[in-house]
């Protein structure tokens, strides 16, 4: 009887270890924060790009849908996504808030001058402090939120054609 218990325990242990390895190997080794969708942005604090005044939730309350886009002139993938942002600008249901991340003002202005300005409101995060409140860990990153500041979708990396269609689909609902 006791021998049987030991055998069974050993088999169960081996099955368990193999199960853990199997689950571990099937998991993606790349971590991202896309899982934040559904969460509410509880705290928003940014600085206005032009005059440095504080931008909080109160300043952003009127919008149905808002895309918060973190960008910088030194970020090459930001150039790739820029045409999509320009195209999104035409949609009246969506407001785009641009957050210029760890950038020089002159370079940022030149970037917007060269490629166009898709932003309804422009903010800056000179030292990257404010972006932590949004769970940003690299740029470009974009967050689509509704009027209650609930995250509908998070886009890690540059916005692609598929992401553009996704945003359009979400705001059309």
């Amino acid at each position, binding site marked *: 009887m006791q021998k049987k218990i*030991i055998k069974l325990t050993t088999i169960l242990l081996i099955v368990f270890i193999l199960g853990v390895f199997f689950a571990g190997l099937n998991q993606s080794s790349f*971590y991202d*924060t896309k899982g934040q969708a559904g969460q509410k942005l509880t705290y928003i604090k940014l600085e206005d790009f032009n005059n440095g005044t504080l931008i909080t939730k109160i300043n952003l309350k009127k919008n149905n849908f808002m895309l918060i886009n973190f960008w910088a002139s030194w970020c090459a993938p930001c150039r790739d996504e820029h045409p999509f942002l320009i195209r999104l600008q035409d949609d009246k249901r969506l407001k785009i808030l641009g957050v210029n991340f760890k950038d020089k003002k002159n370079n940022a202005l030149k970037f917007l001058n060269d490629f166009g300005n898709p932003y309804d409101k422009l903010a800056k995060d000179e*030292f990257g402090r404010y972006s*932590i409140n949004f769970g940003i860990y*690299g740029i470009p990153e974009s967050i689509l939120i509704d009027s209650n500041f609930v995250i509908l979708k998070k886009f890690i990396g540059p916005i692609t054609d598929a992401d553009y269609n996704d945003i359009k689909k979400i705001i059309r609902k």
Partner: protein
Amino acid sequence: MKVKLVIFIILLNLQFAYAESITVKQNEIFKNLRCLICQGQSVADSNSEFAQTIKLVVKDQIKEGKSEKEIYNFLVDKYGEWIVYKPIFNKYNFLLWVLPYLIFFLGGYIIFFIIRKKQV
């Protein structure tokens, strides 16, 4: 004059001791935070853009008087539990914490059983 000098030296030492304790605390926190864009590096080890920003925010929060637990909770809220090396005990990872003890006691029981059987 001597009394003033002694008081000055004591205050200076207290300042140094306080600054050192803050540095130790922030380094402990940096070591327990994962650099999300690095390969197997902690925030303490990394000099990436992300690690630099996290260091800045942690320093700010320490200055604001936040505890280590409050800082971890804030960052876990923003980046998920992956950001901390030492996972927080919850229903999803309780096995991780309990299993070593379970195996230890089970192993002990098996050894005890084998020894007892040999003696008989």
